[in-house]
């Protein structure tokens, strides 16, 4: 039986549900010191004085670090840039007296107990000199400008250049739709708090348990910032309690924990509290505009999509908001624009489906609007504009089974029972609405290394520094490795989440399975060759065998009717394990001719109370075309999670900025609303068959983000269908739907 394609439960599931899995703040460490962060109470200005005297008197307080006494060398901006740093100068904790955003860390109280550190932190008083700040995007639109370019631009290219003559085509089009779309800031808020436990191993050596999406990214950051040899910095992170992008960049608790450990030559743990998690990266607030033009027959001829997003004063974070429509709909006249406004906030950061979950709302709600104007079924409109060619890149897709998503999804959902007019369906006192939307996400792959080993007892070990941020990476990589050698899951061990293992990039962008999976395939290929070579030295039958002619099954290498066990090969190898490390990379030359993307279609039913406007997402289905699905169970969970988040995004989630105070005011789970069980009803996921022979060895595309792009607009569209009200501001509040 092959392991790929089996719905195998997470291998670490039991450890997690029994509490045996250790997260970065849970390692028992003797003589541990605890650090508690003091956050800036102002938004912009200078620190005049930090009064630490009363905190120092608290029993157990060891040291209080501020910008005045932080251990320092000549520190350069560049050294703070991590693998995911946008153009600009990365934030440097405790660097000087300047305050750049509210909640900025300004001191670290280190104590023998967590409680003493926290009490000390609460006693610190700070004198500030405040200056005027700007945190409101809407009142600063005049400052909108282009983003600076940098390394990050490689993965996130600017929007495609204009084609044709948009203004003319739009003016002349038979049918037009346009809209303004407003999205609030969102914070990742993974369940696990951000914690770093730094073990001071002596002789300049550190072992760091960190909450991160990239062990090597953190290792490089710590090495660069503190001038340490990379080999002396080990970052370990086998279990991560969610991250959603917030762990793509080293957060300031890592810096502070390492700084204190090096200075005090002790083990130090720094944990941020929930409200402090609202002080770092976030999904930026955005304002988008669309204008789409179509012919009588429903052909889209003109596409215009613009967006303005916030960034900080020190980095130009961008996400691709307006790149998507021409990847989906082949219009000849296009005009796209993306601008930034610098505000006095921390830099935004990738948050699950960055840009896509923002831009697709505007695109797919505008498409919906057109469908009503034309009186064409929204699904039919998508089919009229269907193309397997990516008009933005002028290349065909390596594969695109979106049509199957549309058709199978519509059938299973019961889309055809929809009556076309808004407000035409009801159930008791509820208006019922059906809405649909398309989703798209890049299918990326990066280079990575992996090691494959046949151990002395004939088992397979596979190694990569990659993390498993809760998505099932451990399980899926084990499946891939097992199939390479025809083994059972029990005979394979995957080692991961450790910077001393072979290189893997940060875990994000839905590229991990393709990236690390391919590296494992390459490492396995090399290992197979090595096994054959060794077998040839002892076994006559294999002398003439070519690697293409041998197969592997149940711990045996098989050639024609002869076989040799791994144990025998090990025996030949003087009882030593056989290991290979190899590089896996995308086939740049072959891929250059193709565009690559994952696609989805979501169908949603909502009920809206006629009188009060209360909204319930009663049913939803997302159909996904994502190449080969390694594990239908973990993949389904990914998409389900994205669907729950879609409900959150469309109806609940926002970090509320009080522009007078210059700060976010709902910094707790009581007030930062995400769905609870009672908000979740029937959710269904469908994977359509998509064989992609081009994209990589295994035909993998990735499913991490595509669940969160189509459904938010599908919800908004269903609400329109139910009520006749088009609300383009997310989250949609029910009172906007109240009967007048």
């Amino acid at each position, binding site marked *: 039986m092959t392991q790929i394609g089996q719905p195998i439960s997470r291998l670490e599931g039991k450890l997690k549900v029994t509490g045996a899995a250790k997260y970065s703040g849970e390692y028992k460490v003797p003589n541990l010191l605890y650090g508690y962060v003091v956050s800036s*109470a102002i938004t912009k200005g200078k620190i005049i004085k930090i009064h630490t005297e009363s905190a120092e008197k*608290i029993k157990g307080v060891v040291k209080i670090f501020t910008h005045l006494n932080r251990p320092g060398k000549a520190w350069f901006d560049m050294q703070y840039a991590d693998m995911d740093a946008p153009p600009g100068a990365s934030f440097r904790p405790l660097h000087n007296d300047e305050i750049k955003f509210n909640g900025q860390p300004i001191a670290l109280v280190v104590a023998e107990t967590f*409680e*003493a550190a*926290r*009490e000390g932190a*609460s006693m610190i008083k700070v004198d500030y000199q405040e200056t005027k700040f700007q945190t409101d995007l809407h009142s600063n639109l005049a400052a909108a400008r282009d983003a600076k370019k940098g390394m990050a631009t490689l993965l996130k290219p600017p929007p495609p250049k204009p084609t044709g003559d948009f203004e003319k085509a739009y003016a002349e089009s038979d049918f037009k739709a346009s809209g303004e779309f407003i999205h609030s800031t969102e914070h990742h808020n993974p369940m696990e708090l951000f914690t770093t436990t730094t073990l001071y191993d002596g002789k300049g050596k550190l072992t760091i348990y960190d909450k991160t999406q990239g062990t090597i990214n953190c290792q490089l950051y710590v090495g660069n910032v503190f001038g340490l040899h990379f080999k002396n910095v080990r970052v370990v992170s086998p279990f991560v309690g969610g991250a959603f992008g917030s762990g793509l960049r080293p957060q300031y608790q890592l810096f502070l924990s390492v700084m204190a450990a090096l200075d005090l030559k002790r083990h130090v743990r720094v944990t941020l509290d929930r409200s402090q998690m609202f002080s770092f990266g976030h999904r930026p607030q955005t304002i988008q505009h669309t204008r789409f033009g179509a012919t009588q027959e429903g052909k889209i001829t003109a596409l215009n999509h613009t967006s303005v997003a916030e960034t900080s004063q020190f980095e130009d974070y961008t996400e691709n908001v307006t790149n998507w429509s021409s990847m989906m709909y082949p219009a000849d006249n296009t005009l796209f624009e993306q601008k930034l406004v610098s505000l006095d906030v921390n830099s935004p950061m990738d948050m699950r489906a960055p840009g896509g979950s923002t831009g697709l709302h505007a695109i797919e709600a505008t498409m919906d609007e057109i469908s009503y104007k034309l009186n064409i079924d929204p699904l039919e409109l998508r089919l009229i504009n269907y193309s397997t060619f990516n008009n933005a890149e002028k290349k065909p897709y390596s594969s695109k089974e979106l049509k199957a998503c549309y058709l199978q999804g519509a059938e299973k959902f019961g889309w055809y029972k929809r009556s076309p007019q808004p407000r035409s369906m009801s*159930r*008791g*006192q*509820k208006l019922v609405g059906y809405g649909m939307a398309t989703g798209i996400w890049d299918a990326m792959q990066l280079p990575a290394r992996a090691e494959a080993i046949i151990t002395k007892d004939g088992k397979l070990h596979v190694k990569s520094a990659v993390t498993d941020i809760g998505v099932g990476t451990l399980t899926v990589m084990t499946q891939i490795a097992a199939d390479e050698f025809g083994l059972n899951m029990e005979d394979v061990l995957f080692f991961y989440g450790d910077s001393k293992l072979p290189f893997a990039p940060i875990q994000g962008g839905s590229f991990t399975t393709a990236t690390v999976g391919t590296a494992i395939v390459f490492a396995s290929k090399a290992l197979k060759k090595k096994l054959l070579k060794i077998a040839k030295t002892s076994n006559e039958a294999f002398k003439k065998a070519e690697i293409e002619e041998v197969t592997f099954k149940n711990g045996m290498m098989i050639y024609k009717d002869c076989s040799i066990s791994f144990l025998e090969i090990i025996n030949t190898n003087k009882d030593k394990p056989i290991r290979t490390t190899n590089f896996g990379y995308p086939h740049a030359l072959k891929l250059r001719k193709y565009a690559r993307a994952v696609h989805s279609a979501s169908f949603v039913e909502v009920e809206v*109370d006629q*009188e*009060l406007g*209360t909204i*319930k997402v009663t049913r939803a289905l997302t159909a996904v075309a994502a190449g080969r699905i390694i594990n239908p169970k973990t993949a389904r969970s990914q998409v389900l999670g994205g669907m729950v988040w879609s409900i959150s995004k469309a*109806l*609940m989630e926002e970090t*509320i900025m*009080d522009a*007078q*105070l210059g*700060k976010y*005011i*709902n*910094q*707790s789970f*009581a*007030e930062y*609303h995400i*769905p*609870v*069980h*009672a*908000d979740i009803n029937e959710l269904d996921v469908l994977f359509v068959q998509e064989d992609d022979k081009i994209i990589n060895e295994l035909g993998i595309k990735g499913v991490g983000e595509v669940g969160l792009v189509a459904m938010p607009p599908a919800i908004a569209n269903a609400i329109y269908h139910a009520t006749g009200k088009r609300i383009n501001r997310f*989250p949609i*509040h*029910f*009172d906007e739907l*109240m*009967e007048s």
Partner: protein
Amino acid sequence: MNNFDYQKAATVSDVVGKSTFVAGGTNLIDLLKYNLTNAATLIDINTIGEHHDILEIEDGVRLGALATNADTAYHPIIEQRYPLLSRAILAGASAQIRNMATNGGNLLQRTRCYYFYDPHAPCNKRLPGSGCSAINGYNRNMAILGTSENCIAVFPSDMSIALSALDAIINIKSEDGERSVDFADFHRLPGDTPPIDNNLKPGEFITSIDLPLKGFAKNYSYLKLRDRASYAFALVSVATGLELDGDTIRDVRITLGGVSHKPWRVKDAEHYLIGKKADRENFSAAADIILQGAVGFAHNTFKIKLAKKAIVRNCMMALDPSTQLPGAQPSA
């Protein structure tokens, strides 16, 4: 959060005149963690031997102040004779919190105003004279009735909305003896003294809450409107109890929640309804009386219209309580 002493109390006389009491801790511990309250000593009142029960008394039922919200809501007497109270409690917080939260603590929980919980934001309730950030700030979940220029916060309890409608009585013990307060006189409007939520004096201890015999078990409903289906405070909530004679209203109680610094009950509206037909039109007229003087702010004017619709809907739901859905959501 500061270091504090912790004591377990055995009797009520151990605790009267002292501070700070901790019951379920579901509100107090948060306030301590956010440095909004500093306690030198926490006195655990859960270890007091009495006031944990729901008891039948001569003219009603007595809810021990130390009984948990969950035990109260699921108690057969409450479910059968005061289902309005049971519904309201179960519409609040989460199962975990209700398992910890006590009846006494519920009446004394503090507002959920964003700015109150932020030690650096101006707030007259937290720091008198510092100003009110909510009036010109983000005020979606703030009050529309009984506000003052000093504070527009809402008292967030669901349980109290039902207790108000049921004419409950609060029994209090102090160093000077015992006293009882009508529910209507317990919570206060912010006026010039936003820090003071209610008329419990420092050192006083709530022993129990008495429910009069009339429980409106036949015609009642609790409706709670909010941005998610559970585990969120009310933007608007309504408790209705009706006593009907055919389709004529013999007695009625309507209390609004989520709109004021105290449960909002207007007796004039109830008098207006008595003797009238139980229909939308009359409920709508009563709603207008209840909402007289309502004033909205930048983000919460919708509450005025919403409250009106909610009152009417909930009164209609009370005509047939079987239309009520879990989580006090609007009927299907």
